[in-house]
């Protein structure tokens, strides 16, 4: 239990062990700028509090550690008498001890008492390491999140010898290169997180030169998709740089998840525990979470397809929660064939009426789809008469819908915004494709009528007074003909408008902007009704629920918020992403929200309780577009790396990868029946993909579902049905009309 004696070069230091410990503890919570932190084996400052204990051999060292840990535990639980007694008996009479302990104890924030046991056990394990690193039990930060930033960073105060970091890392590298091929790919996943954590430790402890040398030597070895992060890291050379960087702080506090098969893990563990310097083992235990699975080790390509996010992959348990991805039952509305106005709603379970044509959109079976949520799982607004009329229109249009397929591609109608001078930042169409809204960098929102019908607003109050309220066409009369125009401008935001979203009933428009607010505009009066303040940072995306009333917004503050139009505060806060939330979409059944983020992950949230039910990793760049398939089972996502990834929501797996675009994909849309997926990108193209084929090819046997490993066929070329170039206009938005005509929109840029 005490291989301390065999630790090379540290024998001499043992004498001064206790004194050094005191030094460490005293200075730990403060800024370590005075160099007393450099403890590479020298008796640095003997001037500080001298311990009354005689500097002895190894056993005394450990007992001292244990005693101190126990004292801390007692103190925290306010057992002051026991503290006194123990101190007296152990001979720790020196007052300074208690002070240093208090300093260190207080600096660590709150930890529950149960950890003292784990502390003690760690003391015994890590006592094998150099004396400096025996301090890890006291300074280590456990799973409880600390609110104090300095405490958060103090977990990096673990000191190995800085000049040995390179040795440790190369040692690991040599080991991994020497293992069998099948294990090598899996163990190579360790390189990146270890590299980052070791680098950050060096920076935190002010070993700037060593940090730079470390980075230069090993930075180039990392995977290519981490290069962007490494570039950011390269600029961080001082401790002060770390403090303001939220993303890095999050990286440090959230454990990087790695999925390794049991065999590979055993190999690694055996190797690391054989060695005397357990630096790497310490880092693994503190900062990494290794999700062990039983089975075949994964191949490099499998690993590559799933990695790339800030926090590694997702743990398997996270993706096991049951998700109700089915669609809600459509209320049965009789389509009046003879233009009779009699509508009735059949609730599920009642026998259908035979006389009128059935709603072909509703599900045929009367049994509840096991994958669909209950109708009242979340409160939804009831249908108004106007909604019912809308639905009838919808059904009529859908009978005229074109069936798309590989043989029958949609026609594409492109709306180019001229004279936008690269200021077009957001576009949306209404569901019936009658209105088009554009958000601009000059903080205005403009609405155009796509049909020949002009935009009219409601008359002013004085004029409303004059009209005949009893007439049949009162709804026409309230509209002001004098100011009818093809487009209307909505002013109100004080920053570029990054996202616009129409409500399903065409009464409202939402817009989100860099000024941190989301505004609700009325499409009857073309004025602003409400400004929802909550994000205090740019809001990158907003989306109305398919049933109206709810909407979701996501922004720079790394959370997405669920709002209802009649509450001035959000109803749900979806927190969990490590970086900005760039894209938010509702599931067709309105029970779930998908968010894509700059941390390269996509999360699926449950509206009912705000829990994260799915985490999808695999993108190598920020995710900018999301689309749910119309049947609710699948999700497509596009990011800056030019790939479209397809996900099976029920199983929580990646089922497809569509390569072809060369630039960021900002627009993704499924056709009305889900047969075709259209993607639009900054490379000025619209591509059509065969989604029926992509989803049919899914092989989900039990093994893959359990371990989450799918072998992705590289069939992007087969699935690509067509590429359509625009004349130097990047594609900002895509929309399938009810008849399956594809509309695209973008701002014409003349270079």
């Amino acid at each position, binding site marked *: 239990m005490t291989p301390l004696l065999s630790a090379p070069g540290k024998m001499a230091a043992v004498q001064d062990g206790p004194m050094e410990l005191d030094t460490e503890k005293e200075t730990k919570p403060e800024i370590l700028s005075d160099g007393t932190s450099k403890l590479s084996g020298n008796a640095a400052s003997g001037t500080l509090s001298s311990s009354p204990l005689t500097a002895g051999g190894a056993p005394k060292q450990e007992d001292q550690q244990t005693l101190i840990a126990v004292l801390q535990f007692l103190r925290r639980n306010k057992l002051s008498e026991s503290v006194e007694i123990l101190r007296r008996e152990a001979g720790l009479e020196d007052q300074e001890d208690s002070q240093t302990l208090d300093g260190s104890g207080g600096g660590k924030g709150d930890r529950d008492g149960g950890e003292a046991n784990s502390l003690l056990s760690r003391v015994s394990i890590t006592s094998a390491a150099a004396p400096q690193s025996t301090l890890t039990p006291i300074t280590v930060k456990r799973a409880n999140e600390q*609110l104090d930033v300095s405490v958060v960073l103090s977990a990096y105060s673990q000191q190995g010898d800085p000049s040995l970091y390179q040795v440790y890392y190369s040692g690991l590298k040599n080991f991994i290169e020497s293992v069998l091929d099948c294990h090598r790919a899996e163990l190579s996943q360790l390189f990146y997180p270890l590299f980052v954590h070791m680098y950050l430790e060096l920076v935190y402890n002010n070993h700037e030169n060593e940090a730079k040398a470390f980075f230069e030597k090993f930075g180039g070895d990392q995977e290519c998709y981490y290069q962007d992060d490494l570039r950011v890291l390269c600029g961080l050379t001082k401790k002060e740089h770390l403090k303001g960087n939220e993303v890095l702080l*999050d990286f440090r506090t959230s454990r990087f998840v790695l999925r390794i098969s049991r065999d590979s893990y055993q190999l690694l563990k055996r190797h690391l525990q054989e060695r005397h310097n357990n630096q790497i083992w310490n880092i693994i235990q503190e900062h990494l979470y290794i999700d062990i699975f039983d089975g075949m080790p994964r191949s490099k390509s499998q690993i590559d397809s799933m990695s790339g996010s800030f926090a590694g992959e997702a743990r398997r348990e996270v993706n096991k929660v049951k998700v109700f991805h089915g669609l809600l039952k459509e209320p049965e509305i009789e389509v009046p064939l003879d233009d009779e106005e009699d509508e009735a709603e059949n609730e599920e379970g009642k026998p259908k009426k035979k006389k009128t044509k059935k709603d072909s959109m509703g599900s045929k079976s009367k049994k509840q789809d096991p994958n669909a949520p209950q109708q009242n799982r979340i409160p939804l607004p009831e249908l108004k008469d106007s909604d019912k009329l809308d639905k009838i229109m919808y059904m009529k249009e859908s009978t005229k819908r074109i069936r798309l397929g590989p043989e029958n591609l949609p026609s594409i109608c492109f709306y180019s915004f001229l004279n936008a001078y690269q200021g077009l930042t957001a576009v949306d169409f209404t569901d019936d494709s009658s209105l088009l809204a554009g958000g601009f960098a000059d903080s205005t929102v403009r609405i155009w009528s796509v049909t020949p019908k002009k935009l009219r607003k409601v008359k002013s109050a004085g004029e409303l*007074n004059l009209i005949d309220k009893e007439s049949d066409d009162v709804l026409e009369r309230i509209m002001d003909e004098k100011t009818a125009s093809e487009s209307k401008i909505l002013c109100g935001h004080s920053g570029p408008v990054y996202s616009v979203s129409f409500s399903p009933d065409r009464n409202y428009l939402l817009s989100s902007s860099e000024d941190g607010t989301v505004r*609700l505009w009325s499409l009857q009066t073309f004025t602003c009704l*409400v400004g929802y303040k909550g994000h205090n940072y740019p809001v990158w995306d907003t989306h109305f629920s398919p049933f109206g009333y709810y909407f979701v917004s996501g922004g720079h503050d790394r959370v997405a918020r669920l709002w209802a139009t009649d509450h001035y505060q959000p109803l749900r806060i979806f927190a969990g992403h490590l970086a900005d939330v760039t894209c938010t979409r509702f599931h067709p059944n309105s029970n779930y929200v998908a968010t894509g983020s700059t941390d390269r992950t996509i999360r699926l949230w449950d509206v009912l309780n705000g829990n994260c039910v799915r985490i999808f990793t695999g993108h190598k760049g920020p995710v900018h577009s999301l689309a749910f398939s119309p049947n609710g089972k699948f999700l497509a996502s596009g990011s800056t790396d030019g790939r479209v990834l397809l996900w099976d929501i029920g199983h929580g797996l990646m089922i497809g990868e569509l390569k072809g675009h060369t630039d960021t994909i900002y627009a993704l849309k499924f056709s009305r029946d889900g047969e075709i997926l259209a993607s639009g990108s900054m490379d000025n193209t619209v591509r059509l993909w065969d989604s029926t084929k992509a989803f049919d090819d899914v092989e989900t046997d039990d093994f893959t579902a359990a371990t989450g490993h799918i072998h992705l066929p590289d069939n992007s070329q087969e699935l690509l049905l067509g590429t359509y170039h625009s004349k130097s206009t990047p594609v900002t938005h895509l929309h399938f009309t009810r008849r399956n005509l594809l509309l695209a929109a973008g701002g014409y840029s003349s270079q």
Partner: protein
Amino acid sequence: GAHTKMASPKTVPKDAQVMMQILKDMGITEYEPRVINQMLEFTYRYVTTIIEDAKIYSTHAKKSTVDADDIRLAIQCRVDQSFISPPPRDFLLDIARQKNQTPLPLIKPYTGPRLPPDRYCLTAPNYRLKSLQKKVSSSAGRITVPRLSVGAVSSRPSTPTLGTPSVQTVGTKVGTPVSLTGQRFTVQIPSSQAASVKSATPTTPTVQNVLINPSLIGSKNILITTNMVSQNSSGDSTSLKRKHEDEDDYDAL
């Protein structure tokens, strides 16, 4: 456009070269040339501010020169003002947990547009104008009638009016210069601003009020009375508020 030729490195000043190098190091290859100027401007402004602050701190500490500690302090104090970063993750998780515990509120049956209580909306009129004509605006909605008449119509028949009332959309302050010699005017202050002042003077129900800049008018000629707006209008002002069936306050959330 963005692809115009960049100035060749030899002809740009050293600072601009540094900026170009920074952009290159961060992997940014395409940018408009104005970006360099913006970065230079920002750098200059920021460094100047910090150094000025540091100078103040060092003189306060009665030091002869500005040293590194002053600079550090200056940076520290400015960082909270300029570079505010979003809240830390654990804080967000905490408030999210609190917020997500409350169940989703039930949706009341349709009672009109579903909007938050009035004071959280932007729908309230932020000005009120009254016209001098007989027509009373019975605002069923929230839109006021922006009509204004210049001239005084009062109940005193002896007071001459100033021409015909003209309808303009003007703010409550009328700055039109008028020749006012020899005329008497009755200026009535709109009651929405002087609601607390009740005057005994009755007015015709439809008299609307105009606030005229007193400096234009000789003091002898003015008789200022404050009158309550008629019943109708005050009835209007309450009807302007959207009625809620229940508590306006959703503060329980």
